[in-house]
């Protein structure tokens, strides 16, 4: 079920002229305001810049925002940036979401401002709708046993074992045959050095 008593903040990035050049950012902000649970909206020339991030942090703290939608570039570009940004003021990093209005909108519909703006509006609204269902997620950590199993005692297995053993880790090297060496031990000489294989 969507949570109704949410406080969603929407931040629209102009990305210089990258977004503002082909999409009407003010319309986007106005449209976002009309959406349920949206209690705060803002635009910034560069949302990912230090002042842009400060604005987000300040709004989260002052407005007690519990969901954040950032309409900017691709999440593949800046999702880590904004996850870190909101975590810094105590919001779970999975409660921020990015609406991609640059790579998938302003940059690819540069000749039709009206339709590009309509599409950007749709994208923002869809991500605000989605934000109502976002839940905090936990990144669990588990311990790692400091030992390695190496299967195969040919040249590759031996080299990997030696590197790890030299670094101080316990290595278990399992070889099916009675001796190490694998195929390489059968070669008379090896190229390019033309030296002995054993």
């Amino acid at each position, binding site marked *: 079920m969507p949570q109704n008593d949410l406080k969603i903040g929407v931040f629209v990035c102009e990305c210089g002229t990258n977004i503002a050049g082909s999409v009407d950012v003010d319309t986007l902000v106005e449209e976002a305001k009309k959406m349920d649970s949206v209690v705060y909206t803002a635009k910034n020339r560069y949302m990912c810049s230090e002042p842009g991030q400060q604005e987000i942090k300040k709004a989260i703290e002052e407005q007690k925002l519990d969901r954040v939608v950032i309409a900017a570039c*691709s*999440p*593949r570009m800046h999702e880590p940036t904004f996850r870190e940004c909101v975590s810094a003021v105590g919001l779970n990093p*999975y409660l921020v979401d990015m609406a991609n209005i640059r*790579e*998938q909108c302003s*940059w*690819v*519909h*540069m*000749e039709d401002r009206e339709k590009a703006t309509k*599409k950007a509006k*749709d*994208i923002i*609204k869809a991500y605000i*709708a*989605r934000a*109502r*269902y*976002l*839940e905090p*997620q936990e*990144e*669990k*950590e*588990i311990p*790692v*046993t*400091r*030992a*390695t*199993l190496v*299967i*195969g*005692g*040919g*040249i*590759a*297995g*031996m*080299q*990997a*074992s*030696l*590197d790890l*053993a030299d*670094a*101080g*880790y*316990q290595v*278990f*090297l399992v*070889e099916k*045959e009675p001796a190490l060496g694998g*195929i*390489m031990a*059968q070669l008379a*000489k090896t190229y*390019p050095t*033309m030296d002995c294989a054993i």
Partner: protein
Amino acid sequence: MMDVGRHPNIKLLTCSQVESISGYVGNFHVRVHKKARYVVESECTACNDCVEVCPVIIPDEYQQGLSSRKAIYIPFPQAVPSAYLIDMNNCLGTNPIACGKCAEKCDKKCIDYDMKDEIIEFDVGTVIVATGMDVFDPTPLDEYGYGTYENVITSMEFERLLSAGGPSDGHFIRPTDRRKPKTVGFIQCVGSRCEQRGQPYCSNICCMNTIKDTLLLKDHYPDIEAKVFYIDMRAFGKGFEDLFKRSKEAGVQYIRGIPGEIIEDSKTRNLKILVEDTTANKMEEHEFEMMVLSVGVTPRLDMPEVQKLLTLSKTPDGFFMEAHPKLKPVDAPTSGVFFAGCAEAPKDVKDSVTQASAAAARAETLLAAGKVKLEAITSELNADLCRFCTICAQACPYKAITVDPKKKTISYIEALCKGCGTCGAECRFSAIKMKHFTDEQIVSQIDTYLEEDSYDKVIIFACNWCSYAGADTCGGARLQYPPSSRLIRTMCSGRVDEKFVLHAFRKGAPMVVVSGCHYVDCHYIDANRWTQKRVEKLWDKLERLGIRPERLLLEWISAAEGRRFAQTMQDIEELRKKVTKEEIEHTIKILTEEEEKERQKQEKLKK
């Protein structure tokens, strides 16, 4: 080898096979079956007394069967561990009355016929798979007469014949009359680059191996005439071209053309071939006293055993599949598992060593940190809704879902889940919740997109790694396409549930596109096969319901294919224009009725 044998941090288990590996990254539990050697490894001094008295004589595998060994033996003089072992399949002595000569002779009393196999168990955090390769056996290629004509040998046998520690003490002799041959021919690509006979791929090492072999031959015996028959000579590595030049300067002839067959002269035991020299465009006849088949490399026959242990996958060439062919070439798709050497693809010594060091470094990244962060976006089972159809366990590419048929329970190993969401899309009872990409989240996006003017919008499901990234690439290149597209990101196309597609049509979408990675690029091993299977089923379902299947498209678009993304969007816009408002309204009516029927069915089931 010596360094490995004496390193205090390496526990060397020879004659051993991994029996099972359980657990997950950072926490694997390993069971190893160590076969008995029947000689106490730590006591044996390799004095050779036992070998002298052993009455059994069998072919020596290390020497490619070109000489013999005893039933108690050491594989080769420099072997590590430097200890003898008894080949129990050939030993007469399990019953001391029958033989027992070696045990009598051994001063240190380290021979123990009653030695038992052992099971050794331990825990590790990472696993390196360095299982190597097999050498192609040319026996089935009867045109070359290997196995029939004794003077036709493989490149592996050639190595032994030319080795100082070989069966002829390094003297190069031909098998039939044990004298030095005057002429030797080499045939390249035996078992490689051939779809029908052998392997379709290039085995990578054979060209350079033959160049090396001809140089060795010319170094020892400048008077032997050597000719190499090839398709292409591939000398692409550092210092390789120099060796190729040296070989040609030493008088080795390289002839572009592969002989169709080898014919033996029954009197001289010489070998005749007919070959088309494709550089000179003429047929040539050649006669050799000996011929070497430059054999390729094949995946190991016992690969399926290792594959099963660690739920690995294979690429079409039969070698192990990497997590990503470019960006994660030493990582297996299973976390905490890495590849070194020929297990992943044919390689020479230098490349094997390079990859081994890379694998060690990748493993060390986890070992040094001492902890590993798990994927937060994973799936979750609601046991109350589960009807135990087990489709989720079949669909999981990582075997993170296990089924207990007796208790009728399904359990999750969270550490193995990578969050593709295929299980959630396959579950027909909504019993699986895919975190961060839940049904509600995705449906809310569809609803919002189609709230107004649905008829001029195309819904596109795009996977994070390829098609969504491809759309980003398209944007980066400013390639323009019609603004009708509305993208919905999922981690994998495997997440796209049948109900999302039907929901989009019910809400008035004229076109729906499901897009993901090409088969080779799938970031979740093979999850996108399930996507395709589902779309194929949906085409049938739509047709059955009277909805044109052409309105649902499946498109594989890689992260680099920005142009392909733009082209696809343009084509789809043309198709969208052909979908009339009447058709959309008709679809909405059909699917709304269908939804109602389904709802009533569910209610009946509940009662």
